């Protein structure tokens, strides 16, 4: 087996960031436009094009595309309303942007040879910190110090608080970590699995002999995983957005 084949079969190869346009270093920072930036840009352009076109037509009796865009709108609006109440709707544009940013990144990642923006912890971590930053900032802005009631739910006898408050604080700190890791790990692991099984199928087939019998099994597994990964791509975007709504609900109603 030569080196190039090994590179192709390398499941980590798909996560490598390559510079497309070298920018910087500016202030000691390398701000190059990379393949990761390109697929991020592609996702944003597709989102704006899709929803922008649907919105600009704006027909009273919607076309199919407009219908799909409006279903997306209603879906996110219901999600925000359901998890954070009517007041949560002021965050609707943010949750909408977040959901479709992640959703399109995940789905674009399912295209062979495409780069999965959300398979990098730096991206999911930044998004998670943005969410929790908004929750903390808005929580204090709206409730003042009453926001700290979030860590001390009412109605418990005082000795319980000694135990309860540290648990609540830890669970709050864990939120951005789990939010970032969940999406990152799902996308990373899923794409590694896809690549591994596809690589197995090819390798087994080229090895010849008895391995040829196993090759279709590896291929079938790859196909099944592909379907699963589409599900995961949609589901993880949904999970990211709904958890954002749940956390925003805490900022809006900390006493609960």
């Amino acid at each position, binding site marked *: 087996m030569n080196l190039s084949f090994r590179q192709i079969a390398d499941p*980590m190869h798909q996560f*490598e960031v390559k510079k497309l346009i070298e920018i910087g270093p500016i202030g000691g920072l390398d701000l190059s436009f*990379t393949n*990761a930036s390109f697929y991020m840009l592609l996702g*944003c352009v597709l989102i*704006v094009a899709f*929803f922008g076109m649907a919105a600009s037509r*704006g027909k009273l009796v919607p076309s199919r595309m407009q219908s799909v*865009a*409006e279903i997306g709108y209603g879906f996110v609006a219901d999600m925000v309303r359901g998890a954070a109440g009517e007041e949560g709707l002021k965050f609707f544009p943010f949750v909408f942007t977040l959901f479709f940013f992640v959703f399109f990144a995940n789905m674009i990642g399912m295209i062979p040879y495409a780069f999965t923006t959300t398979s990098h912890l730096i991206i999911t971590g930044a998004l998670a910190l943005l969410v929790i930053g908004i929750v903390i900032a808005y929580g204090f802005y709206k409730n003042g110090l009453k926001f700290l009631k979030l860590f001390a739910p009412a109605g418990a006898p005082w000795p319980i608080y000694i135990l309860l408050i540290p648990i609540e604080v830890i669970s709050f700190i864990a939120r951005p970590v789990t939010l970032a890791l969940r999406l990152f790990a799902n996308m990373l692991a899923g794409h590694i699995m896809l690549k591994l099984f596809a690589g197995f199928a090819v390798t087994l087939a080229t090895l010849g002999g008895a391995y040829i019998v196993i090759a279709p099994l590896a291929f079938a597994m790859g196909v099944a995983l592909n379907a699963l990964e589409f599900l995961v791509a949609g589901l993880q975007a949904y999970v990211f957005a709904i958890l954002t709504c749940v956390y925003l609900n805490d900022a809006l109603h900390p006493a609960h």
Partner: protein
Amino acid sequence: MTFLSLAAPAANGEAAGSAAFPPFDPWHFPSQLFWLVILFGGLYIALSRFVLPKLGGVIEKRGDTIADALDDAARLDEQAKEAKKQQEQHLAEARAKARETADKARAKVEAEIAEETQKVDADLSTRLDEAEARIQKVRAEALSNVDSIAADTTQVMLARFGVSVSDAEAKKAVEQATKG
């Protein structure tokens, strides 16, 4: 070469001289964050300022249109019901009037018929009385004539036998015969 060597390809990659696990390779962090801020921020502004208000406006407008149409429909339905009620009332009134007119006409006709019948009955009974009186008179006349005819007949019959009888005698004999 077995496929098992592919099970640890990361090791192969590192052996081939490439850098660490790519997602944790820090060289691209500034670039990633920079483009994330620009693109996510740009996407947020584009969606929240332009796309979503318009899309939401379309949905709201449709909702309003549908609500208006439903209101109109309800109003028209109400009007139709009202009209139907009025119509039924008119119909009932007309029916009652018609019945009243018919009843009146019938009563009038019946009264006329009764009057006519009475008149005819009265006429008939007077004429009947007159006829009866006339018959009585005729019969009386006829009966009074019978005696004279019998007297005449008696005279004639006796004359045939050669006996001559006076009128007075014949009359007397007939009277005696009829009385006896």
